[in-house]
């Protein structure tokens, strides 16, 4: 899947807010690409824009292209997009507690996609549901399929969400903070499950998270987002060993270290800029530790540092040229 120059705008009473501003992503089959960033940097909006799930009327999604399976998804009519959604391209959400419909049986909610996309008969779909629930490690799948969401724990519900997303064997799975709402031990289980399914089915995963630990564990490539833009992109090892952007450095410095070589955790001062009032030059400049005078004026471009490493900082840009 390839996303070129994705822009998403929202109509708000205070004016037009551009939540995502020119994102490029390339997701290779069977790989996991991580998107990290603070709350409000546009990670979730990016994923919802790709899926076409933002409320119509209030939002405008534009892009040069969102290429999926050789087709431009963005140019498709809604009816055609529906054939892809939940079928070849599926999504898991952050909140397993509220993402399942409380009034329908779990089995029915999973079976829906099977019946709609794969035109399965009811009994056939139900068999597949039980198989899927077993696949995602739910004990007593026959019984659980007949239960309602409120009868399950958060971890179990997230497994159900994964079963639902994997029902039609999607080639792309977008996981928006799939483990954020879960206990740490459950988090590891869910991540392992996703990795196992990926290995079995060859699904490409777009993993959205604010947790660098999750990225280190799961992803091959990683994209760091800040205020609606990509500020750095690299393979995971490269990014962790050799971060270039001051924001990435700040994020990494804010992680606790096991070797005890630091007394207190670093933090990045300030907050994500108000999307209505984006800084004129570099968007990170107001919070940057190594800010230069020209940072307030010049907009940095995404500089190619080689080996799939890109960075949006005037320093890198100058190094590059």
């Amino acid at each position, binding site marked *: 899947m390839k996303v070129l120059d994705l822009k998403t705008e929202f109509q708000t009473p205070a004016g037009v807010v551009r939540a995502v501003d020119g994102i490029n992503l390339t997701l290779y089959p069977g790989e996991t690409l991580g998107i990290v960033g603070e709350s409000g940097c546009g990670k979730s909006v990016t994923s919802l824009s790709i899926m076409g799930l933002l409320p119509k009327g209030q939002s405008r999604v534009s892009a040069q292209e969102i290429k999926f399976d050789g087709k431009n998804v963005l140019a498709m009519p809604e009816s055609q997009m529906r054939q892809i*959604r*939940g079928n070849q391209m599926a*999504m898991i959400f952050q909140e397993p507690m*509220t993402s399942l419909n*409380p009034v*329908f049986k779990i089995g029915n909610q999973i079976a*829906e996609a099977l019946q*709609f996309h794969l035109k399965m008969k009811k009994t056939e779909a139900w068999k597949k549901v039980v198989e899927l629930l077993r696949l995602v490690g739910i004990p007593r799948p026959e019984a659980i399929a007949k239960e*309602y969401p409120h009868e399950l724990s958060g971890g179990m519900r997230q497994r159900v969400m994964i079963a639902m997303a994997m029902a039609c064997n999607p080639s792309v799975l977008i996981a928006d903070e799939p483990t954020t709402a879960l206990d740490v031990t459950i988090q590891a289980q869910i991540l392992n499950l996703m990795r196992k399914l990926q290995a079995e089915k060859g699904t490409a995963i777009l993993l959205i998270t604010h947790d660098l630990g999750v990225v280190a564990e799961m992803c091959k490539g990683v994209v760091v987002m800040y205020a609606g833009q990509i500020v750095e992109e690299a393979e995971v090892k490269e990014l962790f060993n050799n971060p270039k952007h001051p924001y990435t450095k700040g994020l990494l410095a804010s992680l606790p270290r096991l070797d005890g070589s630091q007394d207190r955790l670093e933090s990045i001062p300030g907050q994500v800029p108000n999307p209505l009032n984006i800084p004129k030059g570099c968007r990170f400049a107001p919070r940057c530790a190594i800010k230069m005078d020209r940072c307030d004026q010049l907009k940095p471009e995404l500089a190619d540092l080689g080996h799939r490493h890109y960075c949006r900082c005037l320093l890198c840009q100058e190094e590059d040229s």
Partner: protein
Amino acid sequence: MIRYVLKRLLYAIPGVLGIILITFILSRVLPGDPAVMIAGEQAPPDVIENIRISMGLKDPLYLQFFHYIRQLGSGNLGTAWHTGHLVAQDFATRFPATLELTLVSMFIAVCFAIPVGVISATRKNSAVDHVSRVLSLLGAAIPIFWLGLVLIYIFYAKLGWSPAPMGRIGQDINPPTHLTGLYILDSLLTGDMVALKESISHIILPAICLSTGTIAIVARMVRSSMLEVIGLDYVRTARAKGLPERIVIYKHALVNALIPTLTILGLQFGYLIGGAVITETIFSWPGVGSYITESILATDYAPIQGFTLVSAILYMLINLSVDLIYGLIDPRIRYE
């Protein structure tokens, strides 16, 4: 479940007793003397006095109340002197008319209000939404007597589409064989097509008149609870599955939005079944509403008290059924 129902019924007893007491006291303190009403204003005082004694009106209030409770205990609601029948008997003939009118107007209300509410919510702030909101406001604000008269004027007097607003069926038509007392149902069951057509054409105007307020309230309720539900995560999940919008809205969202709506429907149902006095009067509908109006005007205690009691019990049963239906729709609600 059965235990729950029994417990609820048990809890209702103190409430019902309280209602009996209040209606009893209220009907006694109302101005007007039934003995005078029975005997006539010109009757000699000793006759009136004798009637008072024979009706037990000279007894102290607590004794009268005690007699009344004992009488109720034996299942007797008393006699309505202004009709000369037992109150229970009068109810049996009047109540089906009210029930039928209520059911039909609830049916109309649900058929209109739910789609209107849903469309309003899914096209929030569109022209459709604005129109339906203005109409809702009007529907809730229009006085029923005015609406009834306008409906009669247009559809009976001007257009002639509707029969004269006189009762449940044409004067020259035989009512269907009595099975349930609901004319539409009875004529369907007996295959009496003439009576069916007649009873439907008679019920439409009063039912529309009665349903307007309910339509307005329910449509607004559906709209607001749909708006709430549409923004929830599980609706987004349903969309993410690639389901058509129709299924997302009418299955995933509406079922959840109906839960709060059900409360309103239950309340409205109870309210309508208590006798739509004005509607029944305007359309000469022989239901309990008009019967109670007559009883109040005649200072006839027994039917007033009986009616209050019966409607309190009905109201309670409706509330209980609403709670049980909640349990059917929402699996999170379980009654043990």
